[in-house]
Structures are given as C-alpha cells and as structure tokens.
C-alpha cells in the first residue's frame, strides 16, 4: 500500500476542510465543539480551485462571540491549509444581526492581523483550538 503514491488522487476537498474546523471549541461553551453546536456544517463549505468560502451559523442572531468564532476558524485554516488557498469566512446570510460588520472584520487582512497582535484575543482563540 506504501509507495504507489496517488499523485493527485486525494486532493484537499470540502470534507477535509470540515475535518479541520469541526473540533474547534466554542469560546462560550468550551466543552462543546462548533460541529456539535451546528455552527459549522459540511454543506456550508464551498471549494472552487484555490478559493474557499466557509459560512458559519452563529448560535443566536445577536451572538456576541461571532467574530471570535470566525477568528478561530480563520486561525485554524491559516495554520492548516497550504498558502495557495484564498479563504473567505462569512456568517451564513440571515443568521446574524450585524452580519456585514462581522464579515468585514473577518476578511480584512489588517484587522485580522491587528486582532492577532492582541494577547487577550490570541489567548481565547488558542484555547478554542486546543482539541
């Protein structure tokens, strides 16, 4: 089974990306994963070549943790996917009261970088990623 390398027989697909994010824990309920809370779903991951769109569903429409959840997902993907991917992380349309502002924060390089300079934020994010 060993060295008949499959070449591109096993490209990175939506399922693999779902596997990367499903085990992240929720910043509020640390014993539950984003998968268990249905915050991330395999169907809401769209992969087109090197473009990835991941939509997540906050638990409640005014969930204050949405940005933090999105940031955790972003950091996990940043660490786990090859650099060639362009990743968009968005709130699933219609599931959050301030959808636009959350989306803007999550997909703005400078703002993400600034957030990751903040030790307190990094601390929370890392705790969500310990799984």
């Amino acid at each position, binding site marked *: 089974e060993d*060295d008949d*390398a499959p070449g591109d027989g096993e490209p990175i697909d939506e399922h*693999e990306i779902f596997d990367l994010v499903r085990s992240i824990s929720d910043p509020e309920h640390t014993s539950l994963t984003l998968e268990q809370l249905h915050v991330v779903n395999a169907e809401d991951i769209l992969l087109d070549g090197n473009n990835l769109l991941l939509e997540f569903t906050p638990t409640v429409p005014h969930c204050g943790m949405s940005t933090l959840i999105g940031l955790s997902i972003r950091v996990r993907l940043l*660490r786990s996917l*090859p650099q060639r991917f362009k990743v968009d992380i968005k709130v699933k349309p219609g599931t959050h009261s301030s959808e636009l502002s959350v989306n803007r924060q999550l997909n703005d390089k400078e703002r993400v970088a600034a957030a990751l300079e903040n030790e307190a934020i990094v601390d929370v994010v*890392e705790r969500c*990623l310990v799984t």
Partner: protein
Amino acid sequence: MSETTKSEIELRAQAYIAARNDGDLDALVEGIMSGSTTLLDVVKALKDFITSEDDSLREKGVSLLTAIVSRMPPAIMNRHATRTMLEFFLKKLEDTATVIPALNGILKLTVLPAFLASDAEATSKALFEHVKMKAHVQSTRFVVFAIIDSLMAKHRETLKEMGDVFVAGYIALADGEKDPRNLILSFAIVRVILVEFTIDRHVDNLFDITFCYFPITFTPPPDDPYRISAEDLKSSLRSCLAGTPRFGPLAIPLFLEKLSAGSPATKRETMNTMSLCFPVYGARLAQEIGKQVWDSYKIEIQQPIDNETQSLALKATQALVTTLYSNDDPKAPVTGLAPSITDECLKTLREPETSQAKPATLILSALIDTTPAVGRAVLSASITHLMTSFFSSDQATARPAILTALASLCTTVQKLYEQPSSRTYSSEMLLEAYKDQLLGAFTIELKNPPSTGAALSGLHQLVTIDGLFSDEEVGFVVHNLNDLLQFEEMDSETRTAMLNLFLATTKISPKHVEETTLPLLFALLPDRAPQDQGAQIKAARALSTLRTLCVAPVLFETLVIRLLTRLDLSEDRLYSLAILTTLESVLEAKIDAGHVDVPKYAESLVPKLYSLACPPRQVAADVQLLESAAAIITLVTRTLSADRQTALLTAVWNTFVHGTSSALGLPSGVGARPFENGASSEERNLVIMFAAAVIPLRPEVALPVEQPAAFLERLLAWCIVGSADEHQRLATLRLICSVLNKHADGLSVLLLDRLPICWTQYIDNADATLDVRRRAISGWAWITKALIFRNHEQGMVNVERLFSLFTDIEIGWEAAKALGTVGGAPDVLVKKNNAVIRILYAQRFFNAVLPRIVTGAKSASEAFQRTAYLVALTSLIKTMPQVVYKSEMPKLMPLLIRALDLPDMGLKLNVIETLLAAAKDGSTESGLLSERATALVDAMLKLIPTSSSIDTSVRLASLRYLGVLPAIVRYEVLHPQKALVVRELGKCLDDPRRVIRKEAVDAREKWYLYTG
C-alpha cells in the same frame, strides 16, 4: 507480699513514669503474668501518683495502668481484675487530668470475656455523665465512640434494656460531632439504634443528629492515612436516613427542598438517598407525597443537567413507584400515580418527533421495570397508544420516531428477563397480547430507510426474549431480513445491526438462515468469478455477510461445501483469494469461540485444499493463494489431537516426500514432490502447503523419518544451494525452525556436528558466492531463533558466530539483520503452534547482546562495522522488552539518532516507533531528552519532505514524533527551532497524500500552541 517485691514494683513503676522505658513496663507485666504480683499490688504501689496533687503525675499513673491492662492476655484478666480495673477507670473519668488514659483503659476492658452486662450499663452511664465531648480532641472522642461501638457489638441487649437512658444519652454524646473518622463510627451506631431500639420519644432528636450532615460534601485530604472516602461517609449516612420509617415525614420535605435549590451534586445525592429511603418509609407515605415528589423528579428527567442526574432521577422514580404499589394486589387494576405519569408521557408522545419524546420514553421504560402489575399496565397503555399512532394515516412521517419509542420499550422488557432471576417471560407473558402487532409494525417498516435502525433494534430485542417467539415467528423475521439483505444502500451501522439480528436468530434456530438466507447469498456468488463491477461488489458483500453468519456448526458445514465448489471452478485469483480468506476468518472465529466441530474438517476441507493446490491448478502458481490455503490448514491442524495430527502428517509426508499421491487423495499422476530435483516452480511451491501441516504439530508427534537430523539438513541445503525461491525458502525455514524448537534435544547431531560444517562451507567462506552466503545466514538465523526461544545452550553459541561476521564487509550487514530475525517477532514460534517458549528467554537474550551491540556501535574499528552494530540494534529494538534497555537509554539515544541515517526504511521506522513508544509511556528521562531534542528535531525534519524518496510510513511516523515532542520537552529547549519546524511542517500541508496532510496539520497545531 514481701517488702522487697513491693519496693521493686514501686521502683519499676517510678522508673517507667520517669523514663517511659518499655523494659520496666515489660517487667511489671511479666510479674503479674507469672503470679509473683497482682494488678492490685501495682495499683497500690502507684497510690502516691494516683492521688498526687500534680495533674501530670496522676495522668502518668493512670496511663501506666492502661498500658499494663493493654498488654494483659484475656486469661489473666479474670472477673475480679476486670471489675476492679473498670471501677478504677470509671472513677478516673471524673478527673479531667486522667480521663484520656481512663477511656483508653475502658476500651481495652470492654472486649474482655469477663466484662459483663452490668459493666456495660455502668460504663455507658458513666460516659454519658462524665465525658464532655466538646471539651475533647478528635482522638479522645474517637475512643468514646469506639467504646460504645464495642458495647453495641457485645452487649446490645443490655443497652436496649436501658431504654431512654441510653438513647438520650447517646444523642447528647454524638450531637455536634464533625470529624469524618468519628462520624463513620457514629453513623454505624445510630443505624443500629434506629433499627433495633425503642426510639419513640427520640425520633426528632435522632433525625436532627443525622440529617444535619446531609448532603455530605466531604473531600478527603490528599494522602489521607485513614482512607475514609466521601462515598464511605455518604453510604453510612444514607443507611441512617433509611434506618426507620419514622424519619419519612420529617425527611421528605427537606429532600424536596434540597432537590429544588441544590447544586447538581446535591441533587444527585438526594435522589440517590431517596431511592434507598422509599422502601423503608413505606407505601402509605409514598401515597401522600408521590405526586409532589414526582413533580420534582420530572424536571430532572425532562431538563436534565447531565445524563447521570437524569438516570438517578429515573431510578428514584422507579423506587417511588415500586414502593407505592408494593402492597397492592397484583390482580387489581393499577390506579393513582403510575397511570397518571403514563398519561402524561403518552400525551408527549403524540408528537413523537419532539425533543421531549425521548425523556417520555425513558420514563415509561423506567415504570415498566417496577412491579409486574404496574409494568403490565404501563406497557399495555403505551403499546396501545403508540400502535394507534403508528397506524393512523396522518402519522406516516412520525413512524421512525414511534418505532424508536417502541424499540426502547422492548429493550426494557428484554432486560427484565435477561438476568437470571425469578422473573421469566413464560411465567408473565408480558408481551403476549402485542407481539403480533409489534412484529407487524417492525417488519412493515424494516425496508423504510429512516425506520430501519429502530425496526432492527426492536426485532433484536423481541428475538432475544426467551420464550416470546415461536420457531415460525423467528422464520418470519428471517424472511423479512432476507428482503432487507437485497438493499444495496445501507450504512455500516445498519448493516452490523442487521447481521447481529441474523446471528441472534441462528442462536435460537439456525434452520431459517440455513434454508432461506444462505441460498440467497450463494446465488450472489457465481461458480466462476463475477465479471462486471456490480456483480463483483455484490459477491464481495455476500462473502462478508457469510463470514459473519456462518459460525454456527450447521451453517459452517454448508458454507464449506458451497465455497469449495466455487473455489474448484474459479479461475480468477481475486475471487479465489476472497473465498479462502472468508473460510480462514470464519474458522478463526470458531476456534476463538471454542467450537468442537473444527477437527472434523481435517478429513474434508484439508485434503480438498491440498488437491486444489497441486499443479496444474491455478492456486499452485500463486503464492498468495497458497499462503491463504496454508493458513486454513494450520488453523485446522492446531485443533487436532496428537493421534489425528500423526495421521495427517503421515499422509502429507507420504504425498510430498515419498510421492504417494493417493495418501492425501490427490488425483493420480499429479506432480507433488517439491524437494525432488527438477521439480517445477509450482511443484516446489507445495512446500508452503507441506509446512502448514508441520508447523502446528504437538511436540509428542514425531516426524515419520528415521533420521530427522539428516532430513532437516537436506531441507537446509535445499534452501541454501537448491532451487528454492524466496517464498519457498521462507516456508522451509519456518518449518525447520518449528521442528527444531520442539525437538532440539533429539537433534544434537545436527546442532553439534553438521551445523559447524555448514558454517565453514557456506557462511564463513569467502569463496562461496554472496547469494549462497546470504541464504545460509538467513537459515542460520531461523535455526538460532528456534534455540533461543527455548533457552537452548547452543543458541548463544550460534549468536556469537553471527557477531563474528560483523567484521566482514561483504556480509556484516546481513549478519546484523539476521540478529533481528533471531530476537524479533515470534513468527511461527507461538503457543498456538505448540512452540516451546521458556519464560524470560527474551530478557536473557537481550541482556546478553545489548551491551555488545552498544560497545560495538561506538568503538568498532571500521565504519562499516559500527554500522553493522547499528543495524543489529535497530533490527532488535522494537521487540526488545523495555526493562532491558530503559537504563541504557542515555547510551542508546545517540545511536538511535545516528541510525535514522541508515538507508533502510524498515530500520528507520523501527527507530521512530521505538522513540514514539518511549514518549508515550514517559520512560525517557527528561534530562536526556532535552539534551538530544535538537538533534531529534533535525533528524525528523529530514524525513518528512514531500518530494523525497522516503516511505510514507516513515514520513508519517516522523510527523507523529514531531507532534509529540512539544508535550515531552520543555519549551525553552526547542524554542529556537519553533519557527523552522512550523515552516517545514507547512510544506507538508499540500502533500498529495491525505494522511500526511492530516498528521502535519496536527503536529503544526501542537507547535503553534507550544509556548513558554
């Protein structure tokens, strides 16, 4: 008494009081025991101390008497002595200076045979009157409880006769106690009082001194020398609260209060205690408070904090209901709480898909497992209700959920009769009225995918209730399952459930599966290999189903016949292989289950396999098929008695060695003499089949040849200079190894005379070709292995010779790897094959070779020699017991890191797996690891790149080890390498192989989180 004696006693006593020297005490005790003096003399001699004005002197005087009493054997402590001493000690209770030693003295006296009932009464009265518990430290209070405990054990009747005096006295004594050590004793005493004493006038007070501790929140201190666990305390308090029905009215309101306001732990403890209390408090009280209690439990079941709380609430509900109906006439209709709870649940179940349906089902199940009458009523109401919903037209989409509820009710009923108890299904016939309906509902929905899981589970429960289904009904279940079998789309969980149900029916009667299911499955297996892909998948699935189903003897017999027919006709190697592996794995399952029908296949299956393996059959040319067939023969041979093994061996021997093909019933004219000169490659392959029957033989079965040594030597020569290819050689060497291991003592000619010649001729001979030398070394290794496993003295001699080859640049490497064969995985030398394996052979072997290897790898003169030692180390390290190398780890670590540079992938893998194992059990000392961590990281990073020629297994192991390092090495040590590791691991994230990516992701995350 003479003056001298008296003064001597005085002197001794004074000396003891002054210096507390045990010698003086011993002398006094001996004096009393020998009769030269008496206890009374000692008391008199101590008069000055006991009546002294000085508190400490009085205390010392009494202490001395306590010490003497403690050392007296009961025989010396006659009635007179006991009474005198008791009176003395009781008197000393009044004196605060002497109360502690007096209590200790009393405790010793209470266990004496001469301590009478009247003494018990006097003692307890004195305790109640003079001992002020609150003034004493824990250890003193403990003695008081211990005295009462001892009186309870020996003079309980007397204490009962004391009546109120004792009960009231004890209540006052125990009131306010806080120490867990004392409470354990006190709870035990209270429990006896509650159960056996007249407590009419003290119920409230007794309740106060027990309930005040509820719920217990004690956590024992770490390393508690008294080893009192919270659970000990809790369970003794529980047995107090459940000690008398008179606590009922007092306790229930307080329990309810705790339940509504308490923490989760309090709630759990409350329900746990209530479960125990209900039966004691009785049906009348349950009647009064039932509704109110249920309202409280309901919340814990419907909106549970966690599963444990929910299941305790269900248990408590069961206890409540069981108590409530415990006195009812089993024939009378059930009224009151149980029907009202049932109605409530059924109302919820009108919408079976809501989230509350599950708790409702759990409650119903809990009620079914109470009294038989309640169970029957609840079951009847529930099934009737659910069945009506099931068949009503507007509930079609709810059917899966309804079946799930029905299946859980069936599970409960099945469990009622599962345990060997007085309850049997045939005496209660609980489901008799509904079985047709249930069978109908489950089978109708079996083929509706959303319901399949629930239907299978329900049917499984029904089938396993002993006495529920008739043979015909089991047949009906199998018939419906057969339809399900045709379904292509089925997830693995459902498939497993289906197979398990099939299996459950075969345990009752294999007839139905045999007559109706097997033909369906065999129909999917064409005589010749299936051609198109669809048929291939169906055939593969059918084989896998047969593999699970055909374990029962009747079914296996059919399976063997049918599969052999197909094997006979098959010309497709994959099809043949699938058939052979199916037979092999069913046989393994049968042997594990201890089936006794396996040996009989030595007469049918085994000869058939032999004839299929002979040229010109297709199997004969295919090593993989042959090995699969050989594995089956080995399995069957293992189960044979020595006599039958001898018979089989003779037939095999005559066929393959002497060429009498009829011996095994082979077709005449078949060429089946693997060892003959000029045998074809197919014919030579038959050695695999030959070895299969020889390897598992019992030691008492002798080879049917006059000179076994000469025969083995011939086989060895066949391997070294004959025409055997690699597979044929390996089979032969396994055979030689196995025979030699069992018969070494009778083969000394071979070991002592012939092998040394073989050594000089083929191995230690620079003129021999490299191939010959290599093959001979491999033979040498297998022979040595056989000896090492049984601690044969020749074994280490042979090992020495292998070491001597390390200086030979041509074959040093081979010799080193040969050591791996010797001490490596057991291969054929396992107990199942009746191999002779001495305990601790491995320790002996490794302890002998490891130091040599370590020294050689470091200081051998030539580089290639050092490499040979390194190869030997890495070949052995995986099978080496950790105890052997643990202490050597500081020396081994640099060698292992060096060995990672060896070109051999298998050796690299051995090293990394050893490192991983050491990391897992934390056996590597952290200082050593820190010292080498940087080198380890560098070595691993070299083994992970995508575009390298490194084996995937090695890359995976290296990634895994990189992922482990952050957990076992301090951050400061590897901090300088963090950026490098993260970058290098990043390169693996785009690897074409998914497994590599996954391992790289995990490792990388660990390194990101690795901080100071």
